[in-house]
């Protein structure tokens, strides 16, 4: 009975803390704007299949490159498809792929960084040199190689993006671990004979979690840009799936006379990236993390 009460109290405290963080984030205009934009995109991604006015695949020579009108709010593209429909659906794949990709990046990057920070020595040296080697490879070239060999399905893109964007998180997690490793409670835990796994789980993660989460949020927006770049180059989402990067790529040649077909996906993509960035900044400030003093990784 007593244990249940303690657990409920802990959960209540966590909820209260999360609410407090949200409140602090929303108290600043930039944070409020960021949160609103991200929430808007998430809601749109969830509801767009039900509110889209046209079939996103429907092609027709009779409706090619129509300017915005009451019938087609954002006009039509070069294959006669409704740009509004494709724009509101265009963020779904990007959000899904990059969200899960970020989770993978956080998990492997965070855990490996913490482990290296804790054990140090030769293992740390070897792992960090390997990470450095991977950091020196331009991600876009490596991604192009991977999708050329394995295809462009989401089953390939999610782990591949998760891997490439997790490399930077290894460094952040390792640095954050170094900050806490010399503290008394770690020394005490070691003296009590706790295993490395126990120390990581019970002592380090609660103390470095915030820094890693903020880094993960920032990586999410970069990954979104990276994923859209792949789509722009034709190596992300396959047609006819609507995707902002692909839409921009297809319409870029028509920009001078059919601007509507390219503006909507550009606004969609850039607003989401800005929204995630503002939210991540506000999140960091609410947790008391000053990103401006961090060394670039």
């Amino acid at each position, binding site marked *: 009975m007593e244990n249940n009460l303690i657990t409920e109290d802990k959960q209540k405290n966590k909820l209260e803390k999360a609410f407090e963080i949200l409140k602090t984030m929303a108290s600043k205009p930039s944070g409020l704007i960021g949160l609103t934009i991200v929430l808007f995109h998430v809601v749109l991604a969830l509801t767009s299949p039900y509110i889209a006015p046209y079939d996103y*695949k*429907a*092609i027709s*020579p009779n409706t*090619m*490159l129509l300017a915005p009108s009451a019938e087609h709010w954002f006009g039509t593209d*070069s*294959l*006669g498809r409704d740009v509004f429909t494709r724009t509101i659906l265009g963020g779904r794949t990007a959000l899904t792929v990059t969200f899960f990709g970020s989770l993978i990046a956080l998990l492997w990057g965070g855990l490996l960084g913490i482990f290296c920070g804790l054990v140090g020595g030769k293992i740390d040296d070897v792992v960090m040199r390997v990470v450095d080697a991977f950091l020196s490879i331009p991600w876009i070239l490596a991604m*192009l190689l991977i999708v*050329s060999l394995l*295809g*462009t399905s989401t089953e390939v893109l999610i782990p591949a993006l998760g891997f490439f964007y997790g490399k930077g998180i290894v460094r952040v997690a390792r640095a954050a671990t170094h900050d806490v490793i010399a503290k008394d409670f770690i020394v005490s835990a070691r003296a009590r004979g706790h295993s490395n796994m126990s120390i990581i789980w019970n002592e380090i993660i609660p103390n470095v979690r915030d820094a890693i989460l903020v880094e993960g949020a920032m990586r999410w927006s970069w990954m979104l840009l990276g994923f859209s770049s792949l789509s722009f*180059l*034709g*190596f992300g989402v*396959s*047609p*006819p799936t609507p995707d902002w990067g692909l839409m921009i790529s*297809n319409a*870029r*040649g*028509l920009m*001078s*006379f059919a601007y509507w077909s390219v503006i909507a996906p550009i606004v969609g993509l850039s607003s989401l990236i800005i929204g995630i960035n503002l939210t991540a900044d506000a999140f960091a400030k609410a947790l008391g993390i000053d990103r401006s003093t961090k060394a670039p990784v």
Partner: protein
Amino acid sequence: MKYILKVFSATFMSLILSFSIANASSGVFKVSHDLGFGKDTNLDAITKGRLFQVVIKTQNRLVRPDMNGVPSPSLSTDWSANSDATEWTFNLRKGIYFHDGSAFDAPDVKYSLMRAKDPDIGSPVRKSLNVVEDIEVVDQHTVKMKLSTSFADFPLLLTDYRLRMIPEGSGDTIGQTGVGTGPFMVDKFDPEGTTILKANPDYWEGAPGVAEVHVIAIPDAQARIQALLTGQIDMNRYVPFNQKKIFDSNSKFTTSVIPTGNWRGVVMRTDTAPFDNPKVRKAFRLAVDRQELVDLVMGGAATVSCDTPVMPSDQYRLQMDCPQNISKAKNLLREAGFPNGIELTVYPATLEPTWPTIAEVVQQQVAKAGIKVNIEMVPSKGYWNEVWMKKPVSMTRWNQRPADTILHEAYHSGAKWNESYFKNADFDKNLADARSELDFNKRKKAYQNAQMTLWEQSGTMIPYHVSRLVVTSSKVKNLDAVDHFSIQWHKVKVD
């Protein structure tokens, strides 16, 4: 009197000087190529990796097509055949020199054409040239070609854009030197950068209008359009019709629409399941709405084709209608053992700007017949080596050729570029019969029978023959409004 003489001399010298200036080659004409053959790109016209944007400017043929596609003199001034058209005699132009200084004569003709037949080289043009059994050097400026069969259209075959004359014995180096008798000479060959051609001042049709031609490698189609817009290149012959508006209203550019025999298509390998079943292939082809493709991809500027590669203006083309027929396509799939349809993947690259759009439109059209098409984009660089004739389904594009050449080259069972691995004895027999037939109507019938076989059995879906939207900088003058291989490049000027 002295004064009059002085004035006269000065006027005369001025006239000479201005005449020389007016006729001197000047300016640089900048064009692009797509690097589609990657590392195999070379200047040997008969090989797969030939960079035709260069060889068509540096080397001549014996016979070239005139503005209407009719064989006309080039390095051969005239020709004649014996009564059954099995022996053809060509008289060669005199006083012609290669860029390396050697004289052009009959042994060069024999060497150039027999080399194209060499099985060790394995030229894609070999199949259509196999009709030539021997070439006899009658004298320094006369050759007699002995054919294995009667061939009334033989000069038409020699207009093939790859049958260029090169110096005798130059086969080992021609891939890098590009030596010929053409209006331009290769100064620097850099297939992945900028290849520089210099004007040949001694060109037999007169000095070229420009001093240099730069052939720049730009693999991406949109990048080539941007290069044209920013003045990096002066001509783009692959501008999609949906971008015509960009140039129409801009005085810096000139646009022209040229009907051609060039075609785009989707190739199914007939040696690979499920496309080894003719019913599956025909079902796919029947499920395509060709007119909609013409409208959506080409803005209406193309001629519908019923899977024949023979160009619309060719006398041997089979005229027929082939509207989309979804119910028949479904029936064929059912009969072939695929009642629930099939799934396939196509691999477009942006080296041909219309491929991704063709794939996307076809994807929607054939879905109605239960054919699921996945689209996987691949890099432009090396497309012809890595994807084409390798994957079960690929995208293709061909430049125009005479009926006999294209039918042999793309579909004959022994052809190197038989991209769909099509093997049909009736088809091969019809082509052989057509070549040996001296009666025009019977010859036409045989070529059309061959095209009907393609409609029933072929693995290549050819929706249309394109009209080409050519955009040039308005500085470019005297460019013939015809296809690549009929242009007389020495006439081009750049202000």
